């Protein structure tokens, strides 16, 4: 790997790249991810583009800090505040199907007679009663709109793969014929938040993630380079799924080291 194009900025996925998720706990840091983050803060520019929907940016950063990974709150991008901004700009009145921890972002937004449903739950928050409430709100709309924070098929927890929000979006779409707007990776609109935060053009940026379709494929579709790490939800069969990463590395540290050793070119 010599020459290549300049890499001026890094977008990192969080879950499965910096740490692995454990049910009802902080999770566990992936070896050397803390060093990789420190290195990027010192030698390049880095932002964290996550589909995490359970916590505020502050609590995402705090959790990482407790794991010894020094990520600054202002460098974290998650869907909830981006969705809230989108609602304000488009005069949308949501029925909120989200975690309590992100409600602060929606303060002041009118939620009476909703004209969309915003879905960003995780794990046991997907109870039948709450899903059915969202369903009833959607089916009564003349033009049902479901805004989902990411459209993931599953996410990887230490105990195994777990169903993700995309399954519940598909369920509601099937039963209501709603339009589904994903504000999260791999949507172009969401990757733009990362580009804007870095203040760079897509061709200057690499995205590093564990999800082949959402992180790697999504970034490539926006003109960035996409790097696959073999941590988190990575599986050997990813290699037959039609997306070719610009680089595949064993872990975040390994990916960063390869690019740095090549003079920040890929």
């Amino acid at each position, binding site marked *: 790997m010599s020459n290549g194009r300049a890499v001026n900025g890094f977008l990192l996925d969080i879950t499965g790249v910096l740490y692995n998720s454990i049910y009802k706990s902080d999770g566990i840091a992936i070896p050397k991810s803390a060093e990789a983050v420190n290195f990027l803060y010192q030698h390049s520019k880095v932002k964290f583009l996550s589909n995490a929907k359970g916590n505020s940016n502050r609590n995402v950063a705090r959790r990482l800090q407790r794991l010894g990974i020094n990520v600054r709150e202002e460098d974290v991008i998650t869907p909830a505040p981006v969705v809230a901004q989108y609602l304000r700009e488009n005069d949308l009145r949501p029925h909120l199907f989200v975690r309590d921890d992100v409600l602060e972002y929606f303060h002041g937004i009118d939620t009476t007679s909703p004209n969309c449903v915003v879905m960003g739950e995780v*794990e*046991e*928050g*997907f*109870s*039948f009663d709450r*899903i*059915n409430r969202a*369903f*009833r709100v959607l*089916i009564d709309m003349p033009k049902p709109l479901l805004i989902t924070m990411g459209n993931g*098929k*599953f996410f990887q927890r230490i105990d*195994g*793969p*777990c*169903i*993700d929000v*995309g*399954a*519940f*979006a*598909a*369920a*509601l*779409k*099937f*039963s*209501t014929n709603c339009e589904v707007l994903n504000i999260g990776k791999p949507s172009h609109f969401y990757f733009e938040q990362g580009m804007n935060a870095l203040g760079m053009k897509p061709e200057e940026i690499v995205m590093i993630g564990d999800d082949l379709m959402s992180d790697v494929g999504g970034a490539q579709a926006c003109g960035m380079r996409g790097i696959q790490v073999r941590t988190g939800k990575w599986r050997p069969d990813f290699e037959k799924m039609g997306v070719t990463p610009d680089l595949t590395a064993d872990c975040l540290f390994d990916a960063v080291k390869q690019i740095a050793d090549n003079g920040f070119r890929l």
Partner: protein
Amino acid sequence: MSKISAVLIDLSGTLHVEELAIPGTQAALQLLRKHVQVKFVTNTTKESQSLLYERLKTCGFQIEKHEIFTSLVAARDLILQNHYRPFFILDDRAMEDFEGIPTEDPNAVVIGLAPEKFNDSTMTAAFRLIKEKNASLIAIHKGRYYQKKDGLHLGPGAYVSGLEYSTGVKAEVVGKPEKLFFEAALKTLGKDVDFSNAVMIGDDVNDDVLGAIQAGMRGILVKTGKFRDGDDLKVRNVANSFVEAVDMIIGNKVEND
């Protein structure tokens, strides 16, 4: 318009809503029986044949238990044929129809309607079986939603679609609107019955009426149960209720679809 000789009739939302008969339907059914053969076909997935029978009796319908053809009965046949050991996502009351079927070390996920089980942990358990153990995905039916006294509820089609999305595996569907289901129901009425002189009456525009039309029968949509404005624009034969649908059949006014 050939004369109708066999009628398939949906139950919930067409003849009754929960424990209440839709007004006039009991007498209309008696009248219909004088002209044609009938079979009751239902996608209700949480109730066994006996339970449905008892409910219809309570509602005042004159009916025999063997006249009810359910998607659970069809599912049991499929499970036995394929030697499936299912992980059941079913209401406990439906389990009566699956007595004696082994369930250890599951190689299939069988989904019916079990609202309280439509949650994160059940979906994850099913996802892992399909993705990691190559279990088959069987849907008793793929209904979008259904009507209860307190309002609309998500149907099993929602869970099934969610699992299809996340696993990339397509479900095998047993109940309405599958052609095999309508065929099996009509077959029980004898050799002389064929699709061209059979009609399906139901409140679900997709699963009852359009499904029957796809299978080569005619269909009548009733504006009761889960009927929503706009459904009537999708089909040719529409009746205000089962009572009016019976009048259409007897008066030979069911148009060809």
